């Protein structure tokens, strides 16, 4: 199971980094989402992997899983979810405003047009 989780995190991170380095907004946002999935699984695994154990006090349980990473990952999921929504909206606004979805600065054809 450790191998599976570790390689899942690795593959997600690799894919995320590749996509983040692309030039246009949409792949970059997809890459960001992959990276946040990777980091969520990573945080979840940072409390050690335990199968079938309760996180809070439970009658008859002898093994517990660490509840803190689950709380942390919940916060991280909520934040990354909101952030992705924000960046999609701003990216959409930028694309509709300038008809161009490049992430980097394009050479300004009309320097007088700046305000």
């Amino acid at each position, binding site marked *: 199971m450790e191998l599976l989780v570790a390689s899942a995190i690795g593959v997600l991170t690799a894919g995320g980094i590749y996509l*983040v380095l692309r030039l246009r*907004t949409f792949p*970059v*946002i997809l890459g*960001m989402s992959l*990276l*946040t999935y990777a*980091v*969520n699984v*990573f*945080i979840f*695994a*940072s*409390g*050690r992997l335990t199968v079938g154990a309760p996180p809070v006090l439970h009658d008859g349980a002898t093994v517990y899983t*660490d509840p*803190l*990473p689950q709380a*942390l990952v919940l*916060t*991280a999921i909520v*934040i*990354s979810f*909101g*952030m992705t929504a*924000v*960046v999609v909206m*701003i*990216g959409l*606004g*930028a694309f509709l*405003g*300038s008809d161009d979805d490049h*992430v*980097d*600065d394009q050479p300004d054809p009309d*320097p007088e047009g*700046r*305000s």
Partner: protein
Amino acid sequence: MTHWIILPIVLPAMLAPFIVLAARYHIGIQRVFSVTGVLALIAIAAGLAWEVSDGSVILYQLSDWAAPFGIVVVGDRLSTLMVLLTTILALAVLLYAIGSGWDNRGRHFHALFQFQLMGILGAFLTGDLFNLFVFFEVLLIASYGLMIHSGGAPRLRAGVQYVLFNLIGSTLFLFALGSLYAETGTLNMADLSQRVALIGAEETVGIRVAAVLLLLVFAIKAALVPLHFWLPSSYAEAPAPVAALFAIMTKVGAYAIIRVYTMIFPPGLEATAGLHDLWLLPAALVSLAIGMVGVLAAQTLDRLVAYSIIGSMGMVLVSIALFSPEAIAASLYYIVHSTLAGAALFLISDLVRTGRGNLELTAQPVMAGTHMTAAFYFAGAIAMAGLPPLSGFLGKLLVLDAAYGTELMAWIWAVVLISSLISIVGFARAGSVLFWKAHGLESAVADDQQSLPTVLSYTATGGLIALLALHTIFAGQVHGYTSKIAAQLFSPDTYVSTVLETPGKLSDAKEEDH
């Protein structure tokens, strides 16, 4: 247990939704509440700073859960100084935004402003790394909104870059927190400082990865070269009052570096040896040089100011990277100076924009209100470039003095002095193009984009310049206080024992565990 320490976080958090819900169509009511809130925050921050000035540490346990199980808010000399600086800066920025009408050019400026304050103040006050992350996110979300306030295609494009860069930074922060938690089983800073010291010499792989990742995250926030690429576009395209408030945001990164690398990974720790002197210091010197060269090369005034922020952050980080008590004291003095000077320069660039309609560094007819604006620019540029008599000069002197006798002294002195010269040339060139060459040109047609800045705009900008003057006049006292802060940072026992030994819920159970 005093409840005052939580108010800098709770008060803006309550005010912001109130402004959105109850006063969303009444800019006047929004302004009144926003200014009142900031004034109250200044009073609270001053009270807190006074209370901890004797070296005590204020601890607030949320819901009375004892650390390290519960969330704690901690105020010591460093964090209360930063809180006070932020609130004072916020007042000047807010007055400028009201005076120039920026707050009325889009929706929800005041609500976002309060959320932004909540995030910044929370980041300074939290005693827990995960909450540092949460407050970073709060301040970033608010800053995304403020950054694209009043819209426009170039601003939105810069906003996308800014958001994406910071999202990657947040992801890195989470990776760092995950590896820290996996290694130590805690994220409370005081608890971490004890547990990291216990890690054996052979098992430091994970903790070293976490230390480097954290440094990367904070370096992104502090716009350290080569992680500075987000700053010039976003600061230049952001509305000027927002950019002025952002002057404190790079300092949040510097604050986090000081806090984490004095307490959790102190300079004496073997596992992270070489992180400061081998990596941070050269990068900081390069930022200083690149920032000041950028000042010389900039073609618009807002980019010039943005690059001067990078340069001054380089200066701050050079001093931090030396990691001696004298150097930290010098860097804190310089942080206060560069926050005020950077914010003043952004406000001045907006005065120029109001006066002549654009910020191109080309000779154009005389702008409206040129005398006052030119005087402010003169003072702001002197402060930022580090010429006497203003505090930039004293700050640089303190940094140079702290570097005296260290191994890299020749490098530090050379880079600081040469980059100062370059920045003086850059500021002088921009000033002469903006204000002197204008007199040779006929103002043929009255440009309808020209308008005189309001009195309140001048008052807010002048207030920041006056604060810089005070920072210079009372330099002895301020530096004495920052030396005390550095002394407290380098002997964190009071902080650690206050956080970990104050009783609360679960603290009895903890003793049974041991």
